[in-house]
């Protein structure tokens, strides 16, 4: 007849308890790391998504700049535009001050990625303008 010593059973249970405590500590650490990783990923995702919407949305930016350029105030300004797959190059000679103010107001208040800008005063109420927007 085999009989198990209760002391060995107790020791086994104690070891089992220690084993599961260790496993629980590991699992808690893993959970903490997963939470941190989740928070960082979400933060990066939200940040990148917002920045992409602002500076890497080619369709939206193209539509927006063409809408600004089609405004009646700029119609008489004889604006030359050159659109490529990566940017738009706008140049205006002898632009009157009213059209310039309107255009610059719209340009600087929108989230365009301006890579080149030149405003040169030609006389009291006129200026030449050159802008390159990258998308």
């Amino acid at each position, binding site marked *: *007849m*085999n*009989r*198990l*010593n*209760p*002391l*060995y*059973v*107790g020791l086994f*249970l*104690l070891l*089992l*308890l220690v084993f*599961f*405590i260790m*496993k*629980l500590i590991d*699992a*808690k650490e*893993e*959970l903490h790391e*997963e*939470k941190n*990783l*989740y928070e*960082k*990923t*979400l933060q*990066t*995702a*939200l*940040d*990148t*998504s917002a*920045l*992409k919407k*602002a*500076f*890497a949305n080619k369709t939206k930016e193209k539509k927006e700049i063409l809408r600004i350029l089609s405004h009646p105030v700029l119609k008489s300004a004889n604006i030359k535009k050159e659109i490529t797959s990566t940017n738009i190059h706008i140049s205006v000679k002898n632009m009157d001050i009213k059209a310039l103010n309107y255009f610059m107001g719209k340009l*600087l208040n929108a*989230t*365009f*990625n*301006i*890579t*080149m*800008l*030149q*405003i*040169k*005063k030609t006389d009291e109420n006129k200026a030449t303008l050159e802008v390159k927007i990258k998308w």
Partner: protein
Amino acid sequence: MFTKFKNSYKTIFLDPFMESVQVEGKVNIVLSPSLYWVKKISLPVKYVREVKKLLPSLFEDILPAGHYSYYAYKEGDEYMVFAYEDKIILELMAEKGISPSGVASISFAQSEFSSLEGAYTIDDKQILMIKDGIVIVVPSYWVKEAVPLLLDNLKPYKHTIVLQQFNHILKKSGFYKIGFVLLFLIIIIFGEWLITRNKATHIADQRSLIFTKYDLKPTMMQNRAINTELRKVYEKQTKLREYIGIFLKLHLAKGEKISYIGFDSKVLSVIIKGVTDSKKIVQALQRKGIYPQTRLKNSVLTLEITL
């Protein structure tokens, strides 16, 4: 500890008056009647397990104070019931040079020798004999004719006991209580471990969904690189707009006029004509946190700010 009767093991008759022994390998131990209390009783119960519950009360009138363990087995229509002190037996074993780990089994002289007839010498002073069905030890001068007790040919009986090494510290029920507490804690910790693991897996799944929802690249390294690049663009464009705004709101002296604003993706250049003293303009810009490179030539002030 597993204990098993095996015929191949040497058998030792454990008695307080025995000589110390040197044990090699495992041994079976037969307890001398002086190491336990025994009763032969008739009880109106069917099973031994029912008798075991009554054992402490059956002995309470005769036993001296101590921590006792009990044992019982059925013999015909009657029950043989035993009470013994684990601590005393263990101490005696230690005194005689027998380690508990070297013991294969422990049984009572009562169960081993009840079928014998006559008297048997244990040593010079003691004789083992049976009286009214109970195995007893008596002084050797009580019986004239006795033969030596041969233990080597003894066929071990099935009634063996396991000594509780900590019985004097903690009762068996105490062990069970501790066992249940440990088991309860194990179940709680195990449950908590499963829940924590599930939470971690759920968060990992949610993290994978972020990649799909926000159209991220497969690795975080790529995503961080894109983010850094876009953030640089954002910071540069914000500065460009802020600085142009500052220049346009700048209070210029009479005759001073901005004639040029240029930006070439890195440097913002502003030319102001009609400037006689550039200090006021530079100081005004510095108050706004702008520190430009300046060049004044023929009343033309060129300011350059690297973004």
